[in-house]
């Protein structure tokens, strides 16, 4: 009886949950109609998969001397007795016949290609930048975390200075510093040696990795300090040195406690990568902004942008949960 009562109670609030979500969407729909916004979801897919028309144009003047299909391609030769050129295009896309007279710039063949759209490209850049920043950030954070609890005052002060500097200033400012200050200096120095400049993407990765590294360091420190002293004493008493003790005894145990907060840090890093648009890295947010200015469909596109971030962060937290289960002691 009590169980039935409880489940009815439970079902009611479940329904309430879905009701509230539906209401929210409904209100948004109604309000957008009130301001006469026209939803055009059908315009969104083109920014994921773009169809592009490619024209193959003649660069010289002359007669089409040959149109030869070979496998999946067709080779079109244009020219006179003096010189000739051969162009290739997919079979069936040719627009000229043998004997036609061609001027420079005339289309010889026209075909469509499927390319990843701007949003997909942006998503890829976000993924790439975040992934690299996470890898470098973890390595940096691990060593800084170890330095932070080192007995060596130089290492410890260096770690503290780094952590406090990074955590005490806004990421946006750090990105500017990396790009406009350090980036300019480094690229000028490189130019003096005749080396081509480093692209802004790498300054973006550097700023994110160094930012994340400071937070990872604190997570690592807390994780290591949560492992009982006796573990270190036992391994050292067996003759293990510091590195062996860390690698075989302390870090494997700390890892399990470090994983959940680390996942949170990675998720913020993915979201923080949206700031990199300001230094001309066309990641997901900047790509969306560009698309919005051309399509004039901001409502759909910003929702799509948010959902794409959600897909990334949710997959990551699923992956970390899987790792957590795997590192659990049976």
């Amino acid at each position, binding site marked *: 009886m009590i169980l039935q009562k409880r489940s009815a109670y439970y079902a009611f609030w479940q329904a309430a949950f879905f009701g509230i979500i539906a209401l929210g969407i409904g209100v948004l729909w109604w309000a957008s109609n009130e301001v006469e916004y026209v939803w055009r979801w059908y315009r969104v897919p083109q920014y994921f998969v773009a169809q592009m028309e490619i024209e193959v144009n003649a660069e010289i003047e002359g007669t089409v001397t040959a149109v030869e299909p070979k496998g999946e391609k067709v080779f079109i030769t244009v020219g006179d007795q003096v010189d000739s050129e051969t162009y290739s295009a997919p079979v069936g896309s040719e627009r000229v016949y043998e004997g036609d007279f061609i001027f420079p710039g005339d289309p010889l063949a026209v075909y469509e290609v499927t390319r990843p759209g701007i949003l997909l490209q942006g998503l890829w850049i976000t993924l790439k930048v975040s992934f690299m920043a996470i890898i470098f950030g973890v390595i940096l954070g691990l060593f800084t975390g170890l330095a932070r609890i080192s007995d060596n005052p130089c290492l410890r002060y260096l770690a503290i200075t780094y952590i406090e500097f990074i955590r005490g200033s806004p990421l946006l400012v750090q990105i500017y510093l990396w790009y406009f200050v350090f980036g300019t200096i480094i690229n000028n120095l490189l130019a003096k040696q005749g080396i081509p400049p480093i692209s802004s993407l790498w300054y973006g990765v550097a700023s994110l990795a160094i930012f994340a590294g400071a937070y990872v360091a604190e997570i690592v420190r807390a994780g290591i300090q949560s492992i*009982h002293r*006796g*573990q270190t*004493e*036992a*391994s*050292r*008493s*067996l*003759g*293990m*040195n510091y590195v*062996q003790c860390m690698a*075989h*005894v302390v870090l*494997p*145990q700390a890892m399990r406690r470090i994983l959940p907060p680390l996942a949170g840090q990675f998720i913020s890093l993915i979201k923080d990568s949206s700031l990199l648009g300001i230094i001309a890295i066309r990641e997901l947010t900047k790509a969306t902004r560009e698309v919005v200015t051309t399509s004039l469909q901001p409502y759909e596109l910003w929702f799509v942008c948010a959902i794409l971030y959600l897909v990334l962060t949710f997959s990551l937290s699923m992956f970390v949960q899987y790792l957590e289960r795997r590192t659990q*002691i*049976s």
Partner: protein
Amino acid sequence: MIDVRNISKTFEGAEEVKALVDVTTSIEAGEVVVVIGPSGSGKSTFLRCLNKLETADEGGHIYIDGVDVLSPKTDINKVRAEVGMVFQQFNLFPHKTVIQNVTLAQRVVRKREKEAAREKAMQLLHKVGIHDKANAYPDNLSGGQQQRVAIARALAMDPKVMLFDEPTSALDPEMIGEVLEAMKTLAKEGMTMVVVTHEMGFAREVADRVIFMDHGAIVEEGTPEHFFVNPTHDRTKLFLSQIL
């Protein structure tokens, strides 16, 4: 085997604590020395100074098998590999199985082959009677079993000396016997042992010598007969009357 000369240990902090005051003693090879004394008497600190888990104050000397433990030139890891230690809280590695606990240091410190380390480990687990739990994790073992694994883990390094830091104090009473039994076997085999304990029965039966410490200093030392039958110092008499 162990030569301790004028060792002191001061813990810095809000309040300076003198845990050891000018301790001098020596322990022969094959000798079993039991250190007793009230809590806070410095007996654990004394033991931990021997393998430099605590660093004694400057001025004293500790020699183990002729090696100057406190010299900055000494590779302390080499010394520790020769000195086994068993802790009150067992300190087994919870993320490793029993057999892995016993093979780990053999592999990374002694650089033994996997098979050789395994064989050695199984042999020692047999000796302490836990061979059937070789693939269990420490958390699934009783306290007594864990402490016996800890003894096997220390023995796997073929130490010249074994240090026991109150090995039975964290155990339920019914498990104390099995751990003491393993220690007795070890003593009979001629292992050099320094044991900090409150087990007077063990001291009486197994010890070659008993050291009584109080306030960081050695008050009295002698054979168990002398110590339990005719203690000379009043402080020793008082302590014995309280615990016996």
